[in-house]
């Protein structure tokens, strides 16, 4: 004897199962952040944030890592933004389909999928060894820049595409050249969308470990120039946790890292949302 479940019953069962699985997913994701925060907030203090790191991280704070992360990220963004935005402008404003466009898009799409350890290998052999930049902020940020270019290209491309054609036509009819139109009309209008891509890139750079540890190194000293080696927050956290140096400090560092990343992503999300409401 076989039971056949009617369509109504299967609808109800499916609904319940899907709802449960969604709840589990969301709970797990919240649990991860909540667990780190619960154990990490107690570690946060002005001393923790602004003190030097002592005894390999067992004592003291994370100030050198905060400064190192800041340097590496800012430099990476300075390098990647013109390249990413420039590529997007070229893709949207200068190509009309065709092979060239396909090649450029394909490059960006493939680069976006390359795992960070491959960037680490590449940065290590190319920037650190071949270009003799050593383990340094410069090597780290060049590697990260290559990594975040696709993020900036994709987001900027969408933003520039969303600028209504009529805006460009008005500019041309007023005698504006192509470059003028791009600089004075297209880029200002798409700025919030472009910024979203840049901010997402910042988020990726801050959270990255594998690509940075082999290019920027893991020195705990206070960086003095772009040629200093540094240990970013993510790398410091990884070393604290993996080598079991100090679980308390690891929770504290993770909390700082997550707060920064959530903030950065939230800003990006808000900007994108406002931009989409206006142009879509």
């Amino acid at each position: 004897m076989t039971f056949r479940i009617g369509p109504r019953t299967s609808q109800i069962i499916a609904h319940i199962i899907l709802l449960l699985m969604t709840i589990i997913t969301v709970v797990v994701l919240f649990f991860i952040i909540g667990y780190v925060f619960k154990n990490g907030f107690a570690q946060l203090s002005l001393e923790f944030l602004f003190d030097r790191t002592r005894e390999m991280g067992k004592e003291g704070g994370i100030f050198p890592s905060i400064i190192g992360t800041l340097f590496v990220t800012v430099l990476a963004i300075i390098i990647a933004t013109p390249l990413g935005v420039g590529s997007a402008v070229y893709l949207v404003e200068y190509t009309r389909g065709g092979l060239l466009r396909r090649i450029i898009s394909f490059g960006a799409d493939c680069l976006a999928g390359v795992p960070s350890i491959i960037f680490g290998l590449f940065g290590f052999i190319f920037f650190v060894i071949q270009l003799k930049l050593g383990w340094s902020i410069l090597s780290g940020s060049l590697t990260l820049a290559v990594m975040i270019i696709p993020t900036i290209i994709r987001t900027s491309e969408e933003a520039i595409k969303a600028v209504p054609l009529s805006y460009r036509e008005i500019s041309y009819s007023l005698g504006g050249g192509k470059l003028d139109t791009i600089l004075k009309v297209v880029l200002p209008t798409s700025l919030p969308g472009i910024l979203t891509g840049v901010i997402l890139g910042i988020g990726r750079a801050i959270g990255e470990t594998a690509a940075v540890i082999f290019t920027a190194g893991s020195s705990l000293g206070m960086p003095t120039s772009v040629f200093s080696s540094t240990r970013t927050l993510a790398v410091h956290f990884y070393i604290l946790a993996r080598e079991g140096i100090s679980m308390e400090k690891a929770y504290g560092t993770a909390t700082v890292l997550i707060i920064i990343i959530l903030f950065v992503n939230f800003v990006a999300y808000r900007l994108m949302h406002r931009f989409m409401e206006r142009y879509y």
Partner: protein
Amino acid sequence: MKDKIAEKLLLVIAFSAIGSLLLITFFIFQQGIPLIFKIGLGNFFSMHWSPTRGQFGILSMIIGSLMVTVGALVVGIPFGLACAIYLAEFSSKMVQKTLKPIIELLAGIPSVVYGFIGIVILVPFIRTHFGGPGFSVLASSIILGIMILPTIVSISYDSLIAVPNTYREGSYALGATKWQTVVKLLIPAARSGIVASIILGMGRAIGETMAVIMVAGNALKIPHSILDSVRTLTSTIALELGYATGDHRAALFACGAFLFIIITILNIIAIRVTGRRE
């Protein structure tokens, strides 16, 4: 004149992504491939990895990478698709608007944080309740499965939402329930996006390094059960690059080259499947 210069300059800039990709390919291969020829393909795809004795066989790591990736998909696909289907078809606009960005926000959480949660919660849990060292295929699969969720949810959701409403209306008009519509109509219609999300998630799982190092145990042998320790290609590179020299370093680049080829193939399939930008 000014416009001409700008166009040329932008053309050069536009090649930064594909140029970087070629540069990466060149350097990884230039460093790694000669070693493969030196020791021979047979030795490279053998079981024996012992850098001090000049043995660089990566088979056990390939199997390790494969196991944790399949494990990640077993965890990630059902939950990811369930979330995407629930959000796209069963939930209210309010729930959609709140949960989608939250799940996407979590894609930004650094992989080391996932690895850390693995160390402090998952590994001890597995050790006490299932036995074994805790650092295992199971722990890696669960952590990676969670990490690829945002990728699967986000892309599958977008492709489900993109199915025209007339499909749903037609199906309801014929008396089908929501679930029947999802199974018979929406999933087939959104197939390419769903497949792409799974392939991209797979790429992310194979390429993930830090989280896996932290929970996999990294023992150099083929695991006999999901509770055994496992070592992946990526962890080998990250664990040994710091001190490797000569042939050993070249072997790590060869691992990288192998990984790079696999991931690029997956990327190309994903790009093809979605027909993005056409």
